[in-house]
């Protein structure tokens, strides 16, 4: 039985704003966030730190080209 996650074509982006005091801290927080969500295969697509924190978009890869795609399984 396919799960909702299985039906994602390629990747899932999470965009938000995290309160922090540096770009480095923002990256650490994003890493912790993704681990806590069980999304180990991730990459930060964009990150813009200023003032209260960072605007970011992080991408969790569900199916990369060449994988055996979850959306092709019964």
């Amino acid at each position: 039985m396919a799960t909702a996650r299985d039906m994602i074509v390629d990747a899932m982006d999470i965009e938000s704003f995290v309160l922090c005091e540096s770009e480095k801290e923002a990256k650490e927080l994003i890493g912790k966030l993704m681990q806590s969500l069980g999304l180990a295969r991730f990459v930060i697509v964009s990150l813009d730190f200023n003032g209260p924190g960072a605007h970011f978009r992080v991408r969790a890869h569900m199916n990369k080209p060449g994988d055996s795609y979850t959306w092709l399984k019964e």
Partner: protein
Amino acid sequence: MKILLAPLDPVHDAGLKLIKRKLEALGYQCVLLPPDITVEEIGEAALKEKVDMIFVGRTVGYGVEQLFRRVRHVLTVQGVFGKVRVAIGGMAVTHELAQSLGFEAGYGPHTTIEEIHALIERNPELARHITHPVKHKPEFPFPHDNAVKDPTTLKYLDQIVDGILEWTANKTSPGVVRAHITESQLQDVKGSVESYTALPFTRDYLGQCDAAVVDFFQKNICPPSVRQITQQEVDAYNHRIDIARKNFHPRFLQHGRKKPLVFIQYGTGCPMMDGMHIKVAESWGADGVLHFDPAWGARTEGLLDGFLTNAEDGTPVTYANLSLIKRSLDDATLWTVRAHRGLNTPEIAVLAGFLGADLTKINIVYGSICGGTDPARLTVDGVDAIRIAARYKMPFDIPTNEELAGVPPHKAFAGMLIMAQLGRRLGAQPILKPLLCHGPYIMVNELMEQNYVDYNFAKIRALQTLADFPIWPGEPIGFMTHTEEKEQSATTTSLHVALCATLGLDAVTTASTDEAFSRGPITSAGRVGSLRSIEEAFRFFGQTEIAPSARAKEWTEELIVGINQTLKAVAEAPSFVEALYQGILGNKEDGVYPGRAGRNSVVAARPAAPAAAFKAPADTAPRVSSFGK
């Protein structure tokens, strides 16, 4: 028919005013109640005016369900509900909500007057073109004179093209030989994918291939990062495509404009992922798609075969892969298969032609000085590929991505015009493909410090002054103006599209919002983001145009002078091929140099012998699963 329009808001009744105006234009008699009325007053007005139907509108979304529940109750008590037809509408109203409350229909903020008309008349056909739009494949490219207008430019171009045709006469190469073998085999099997992939490979074909390709066919060794796709995967994929096709409603981006058509490029590495991205792009309004192959495919003599997926950028060109993608396309989608720059240029043109691709891509100059292929080799192969394109009636576009390496636009455009005139002389249909980019030459010379409009404007106007060929900027537009930030990326793409609309161009190739993201593959959501932004740019600008400053005119004139000076230098060189080696169309100072792949592989042509089938000995490794040739 008499219709009562009743706004259930204190002030907002714009929607119903609009509906009133449009329904009256269709011949209906309408009574519009003022805002700030009670539910009871709606029923009283309906009875007094003896209306046939009531539209109750509510703009404010909160509490809408309770409100309409009360509307129904009051109208029922008044003896209106059940006697007079009642529909409801507003920001938070859906058809499902309306039906669950017992109303005839509900209309949301995007409901068209055609849909309301169909509802009133209970005739869905009146809105069929809205609810079930049909997209037809356009005749592309759009009509042009396809002629060089400037006499000086024409004189140099004809001189250069005469030289190219003379130089390539009686010359051939492994790429040309393979193309003819492949074409002959495809003719034998009438283009059947199953029959073609089941063919035994031939000694003649493998004799013209690099060791990696020979190993693939004889020892079942795939290049690194490539694997074979199983039949089970293909079947499951085709099922997914059928589902996508069943639920597909075409979308039109141009807001009434005929052009530019919007293309996206794909080449994730996997034909199945490509196919899914194509379905997403079609569904969000793309008019066409372009196939991109991996870079190693251009530097390797010979093509692989069968269903193959690559874990890196660029989807391997095989007849089976292209057929899988072809099957995925909507009938209205224009399909380009890039052939242009490598050692397999003519053979890819053959595969594309046999599969009915609408377009292909060939540029000897770019491939020679920027794509890594030897100029002599690609001149021979490019001429053959253009002849193939003409034979299969595939217009070919001429990319000028050498600008991204630092070649000045006037040199890149000179090369593009040589290719266009060569194409015309060989009976093909060329399409100019300038870059609208913030390339190195432009950066160093600070030509776009103030804006991205003026110099791009000048580039296109220079081309349009010299010749009337279709123009389709890419690949993609706005190259090097994108950042990894999604909104910025979508915005710059859509503004470049708007500029192309102003310039009257035929098509554009557009990036996803992942254009500047280089640490992973492009995503389907990124394609949606760009296409939605493009749609909004078309909506915003409509038929209005973007005006450049006076600098654009000066730059246009400078570019024209530069193009003609470059063409003169090429015409005066010992040959076109020598001009490429000498760097007249781009040199090391610019950032490019003649390619080496296929060097010394051009040979004198001789009559071709029929291809001899070669079966692998029993003690060698098996052929590639169920396919190979």
